[in-house]
């Protein structure tokens, strides 16, 4: 084993302080943000890396950003190298490299110097409500080029040695909708970085810089050791699987995605070679998006409780062909990137579920189920804009029924918007927020029901856009459990006509009294439904999770 100079107790204290710094940066950003997508959905991440850009600790709201920060920092080092000065802050949202996802996710990177020596970087990445482009919210289900999706920041200096780059700020201000929100969030991000800077400098003040640098290295080594220990316990060999993504939002064609997983004693290799090439519509994923998705399930498999740093990912390799739908290149649109990115987790999840029943459940809703809706508030000046993910059902496991009303795997400490707040802020009426008890996902353990939420417009000329992936196929059951259901939405117009169901729609026009009904998938079941105890089945009937008819048909129930 490697030996370290710092004693184990001092190291422990420094490690705690580093983790606390990541958390503090995270909280600072949420508390000062102007947009619900940040402070309720927590669609952002903050962290710090060592001087080489390896992630040391990250405060997470959602899993989907795990590992993107280090790519951002590494790109900054590659682009600006020796010209990086104390007080610089870089702005970056490039989806084709540098830790990008879609343009809305804007990253900031700041070097930390102590007595002239580069010690570390602090970085964060937050979903801006708008970055310009053709549609409000900068996300579309029908964009065909990145240029339609807003501003691209290719790792530019936002601050130069502490001085803000005013022309750049003005340029952003004039090119985004709701600039007070986006610029407000930018300042919240800056405040968060400065909090991190302050804490790191205090640490350097107290201990030698060398001690801090060594402690970061040691923390990474520990992460690696833990991951290797867990890999030892996994089944060895190769596992192959392919699946179909609904469509790209432009044509109706399904898209092939495939994986070959190779697990050895000390490696976990995920090869997506053979996956279809990038598509016309905006569901293309960046390579870092794919990597984050793979890392999420890798952590779920190896050690869900550990402190996360890049060390844990040293045994992990992710291969994807450049120009494929999961490693896209310019100028492919990416605003709905998670519709392909999610399959990075999904294919591994599904491949290994039979081998790891203590960790992996049956399939869950499998889409962020994003809703974007806007228009005039009936009582207030100015337009409202809703941008939010939706909750749905999770799959059952070997010892539990699936949960209801949870966000997908790439979200996390994400909160839905309370009905009372939504109605006040957006001036819509929500007629229903309830469980979708469709009886799908039958099993010895039952899948968690999906959720129904509706929005009724109270003014004319509103628009509604949504991307509800996994619309064409039902989510999967495991170990003999039945499949769950799908995600879909429909429009009930004021005149009584119904349009849909749809999986994706861009800018549907709603007038006063028109209602959108959103339905998310019920999770897959686990095990043969016939094995579910009579008592549990009767309880499910009593509580309305299933009907008597479903009890008879799926569970072989008779009174």
């Amino acid at each position: 084993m490697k030996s370290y100079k710092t004693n184990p107790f001092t190291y422990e204290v420094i490690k705690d302080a580093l983790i606390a710094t990541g958390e503090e940066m995270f909280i600072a950003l949420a508390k000062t943000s102007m947009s619900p997508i940040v402070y309720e959905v927590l669609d952002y991440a903050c962290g710090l890396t060592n001087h080489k850009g390896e992630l040391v600790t990250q405060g997470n709201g959602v899993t989907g950003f795990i590992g993107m920060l280090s790519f951002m920092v590494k790109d900054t080092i590659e682009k600006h190298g020796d010209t990086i000065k104390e007080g610089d802050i870089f702005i970056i949202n490039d989806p084709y490299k540098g830790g990008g996802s879609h343009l809305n996710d804007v990253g900031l990177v700041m070097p930390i110097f102590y007595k002239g020596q580069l010690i570390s970087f602090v970085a964060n990445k937050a979903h801006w409500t708008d970055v310009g482009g053709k549609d409000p919210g900068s996300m579309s289900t029908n964009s065909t080029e990145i240029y339609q999706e807003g501003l691209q920041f290719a790792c530019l200096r936002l601050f130069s040695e502490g001085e803000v780059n005013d022309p750049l700020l003005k340029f952003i201000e004039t090119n985004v909708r709701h600039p007070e929100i986006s610029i407000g969030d930018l300042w919240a991000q800056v405040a968060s970085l400065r909090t991190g800077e302050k804490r790191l400098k205090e640490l350097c003040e107290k201990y030698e810089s060398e001690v801090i640098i060594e402690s970061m290295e040691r923390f990474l080594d520990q992460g690696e050791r833990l991951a290797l220990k867990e890999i030892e316990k996994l089944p060895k060999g190769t596992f192959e699987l392919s699946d179909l993504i609904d469509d790209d939002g432009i044509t109706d064609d399904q898209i092939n995605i495939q994986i070959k997983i190779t697990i050895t004693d000390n490696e976990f290799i995920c090869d997506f070679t053979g996956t279809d090439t990038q598509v016309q519509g905006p569901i293309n994923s960046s390579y870092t998006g794919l990597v984050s998705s793979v890392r999420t399930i890798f952590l779920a498999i190896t050690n869900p409780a550990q402190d996360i740093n890049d060390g844990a990912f040293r045994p992990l390799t992710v291969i994807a062909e450049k120009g494929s739908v999961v490693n896209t290149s310019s100028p492919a649109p990416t605003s709905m990137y998670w519709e392909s990115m999610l399959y990075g987790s999904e294919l591994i999840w599904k491949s290994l579920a039979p081998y790891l029943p203590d960790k992996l459940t049956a399939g869950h809703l499998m889409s962020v189920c994003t809703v974007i809706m806007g228009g005039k508030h009936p009582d207030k000046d100015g337009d409202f804009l809703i941008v939010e993910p939706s909750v749905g059902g999770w799959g059952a496991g070997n010892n539990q029924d699936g949960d209801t009303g949870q966000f997908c795997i790439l979200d996390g400490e994400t909160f839905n918007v309370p009905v009372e707040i939504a109605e006040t802020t957006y001036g819509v009426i929500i007629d229903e927020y309830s469980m979708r008890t469709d009886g799908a996902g039958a099993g010895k353990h039952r899948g968690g029901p999906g959720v129904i939420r509706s929005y009724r417009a109270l003014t004319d000329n509103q628009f509604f856009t949504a991307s509800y992936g996994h619309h064409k196929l039902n989510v999967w059951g495991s170990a003999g459990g039945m499949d769950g259901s799908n995600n879909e939405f429909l429009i009930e117009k004021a005149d009584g006509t119904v349009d849909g169901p749809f999986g994706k729609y861009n800018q549907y026009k709603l007038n006063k009294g028109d209602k959108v009904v959103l339905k998310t998938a019920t999770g897959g079941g686990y095990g043969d439904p016939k094995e579910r105890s009579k008592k549990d089945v009767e309880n499910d009937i009593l509580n309305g999770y299933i009907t008597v008819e479903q009890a008879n048909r799926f569970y072989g129930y008779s009174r």
Partner: protein
Amino acid sequence: MRVATDIGGTFTDLVAVDDNGKIIVGKSDTTPNKFEKGIFNVIEQANIDLKDIQMFFHGTTVVINTLTEKTGVKTGLITTKGFRDVLEIARGNRPDLFNLKYKKPEPIVERHLRKEISERLDYKGEVISPLNTDELNEILTYFKEYNVKAIAVSLLHSYKNDEHEKQVLNYIRTNYPEFSVTISSELSKEWREYERTSTAAFNAYVKPIAHDYLTNLEQNLIDKSSCKKNYIMQSNGGTSTFEIAKKTPINMIESGPVAGIFGASILGEVIDENNLIVLDIGGTTAKCSLVENGNVKISTNYHMEKTERYAGYPLKVPVVDIIEIGNGGGSIAWIDDSGSIKVGPKSAGADPGPIAYGRGGNKPTTTDANILLGRLALRNFETSTSLEEIKNKFEISLGKQLNTKTDDLAMGIVKIANSNMLNALKLISVRKGYDPRDFTLVAIGGGGPMHSQALARELGIKKVVIPSTSSVFASWGMLMSDIRHDYSQTLLLPARGISYKEVNSVYDEIIRKAEETLNTEGVEASDVVITKSLDMRYEGQEHTVEIHVPYENIDENNIEEIIKNFHENHDRMYSYTLPENELEIVNIKIQALGKLEKPKMIETDTEEGTALKEEREVFYEESGWIHVSVYDKNKLKVEESVTGPAIIEEQSTSIILHDGDVLQKDKYGNLVIEIGGQ
């Protein structure tokens, strides 16, 4: 004579003050199935004549235990049509990010007992569809059939207009008086339907049990003593009468720990220190809280059972802001899978306890480390364990693996324990923009004084106070408390350019309600103290900052003062302001105190004899083993000072003075330590 009793999991504590200010202390076993028995036992054991009791204060864990052990009554829920699943959908968050088997908190009400009625208000509180009480009959019949005992009613936007909830309440009371009913708007007038519904459901769930408990206790008190002034400790650091507590028992959820924090604020008044950080270290956990300008911090963001990896259940009731971490005297030191050394959150508890207790404990704890370092004397423990035994067990569990000497290992454990506590102390101070150097640290609980000086040094705090009643401080705090009720009403208005008439009239209405409540509790109008505040934010933000309103009414003139104050506080908490942005008033709040007469404080007695007990070897991080003087706390004379390095011993704990610390006993028996001297 006034008496405070506090029922804990193991012991029932008593603190009483007689008319001359003399303090009496008692302790007896808690009697789980008949709590009042333990209460009368402890009164008897303390030699208190029941007839002498003029005021009785009581804190109890009956509510929190009922909730966490899920032993409440069968409860039904009535919601607005379309929303019966509100408790099950909850907020959708998954704090255990990478655990695919995460299970969210299970709803306290089964789905078939969650019923909907036709009615609807809009966000302004205006009626869109009227309430249809005809539907209630069927619902209530169903509830009866399933043996439901209590009902919670939570309708959308009831925080804005509680008329429909009240109509449901009246209907049930009139037609089905056998049900115990809770409506959400009587507990919280803040928006967010899941949180409010959860609060109402848990209040309903525990109400019949709390009701029986309190009624029974009150009856016993009235029968046995002539005491009519009986009060219950609430989570907001104040008390209420038994009658009020029976209606809203959920307000008692954290009644134990908060009393200590409140006690510190009273102590602060006595010793003229307004800004305090309170640190309470027990066997299993350490708790800390901050008192600014004599005010204990209250919030309604409480989550029962919440951890880093579990969402817990929200209860929107006023609770003193306390951070609690799994780090106490009994916390176990261990090595995790990555080879890192950790202290806590697992604790050896009271049984088997630390190795030193000699009751079969064999895992190193913080207490054992303090013994090995000479800070605690093994002879003060009633034990047959030897130092050698402790050393051996340290060696076996940790020393070999870490390849360190026992001294360094013990010091390392204390260091990590301190680091954990330091992070908690920073959470309530530095992270909220407070400079700890402006605060005095009050150390309570068995472990408080042992760690407080090192922690104060790290934080730059100059003064530490160890109260004379440190070991029973929570009960002492109760004796000092006032009747207190907090109210909050979500309004959502722009801060500028409005007619302030609405705001002022809502204030007036809440104040009237508070005064009425206090009046029913026997408080004279002249003893009522109302403090007003606002939750404000920049338009578009979510999180609010609480700003005090020291004015009779809000008007065009003083609003600018309030706004200025907001910017300053925002700057302190988040280190920036947005002077150009519009502001919003989110909630208006009041704190209503019914002042109770306070007992006298008397000067301390000193035991005869010299305080110097012995000299012994003690390990300090900076200097290693050194020879220091050890003093007996009870024999220290008033104003006698001791300069560190030194140890002051009590029965169960030690006060560690580091190099240059100067300790002095004040006339009330409190120990005041200047860190690094003055």
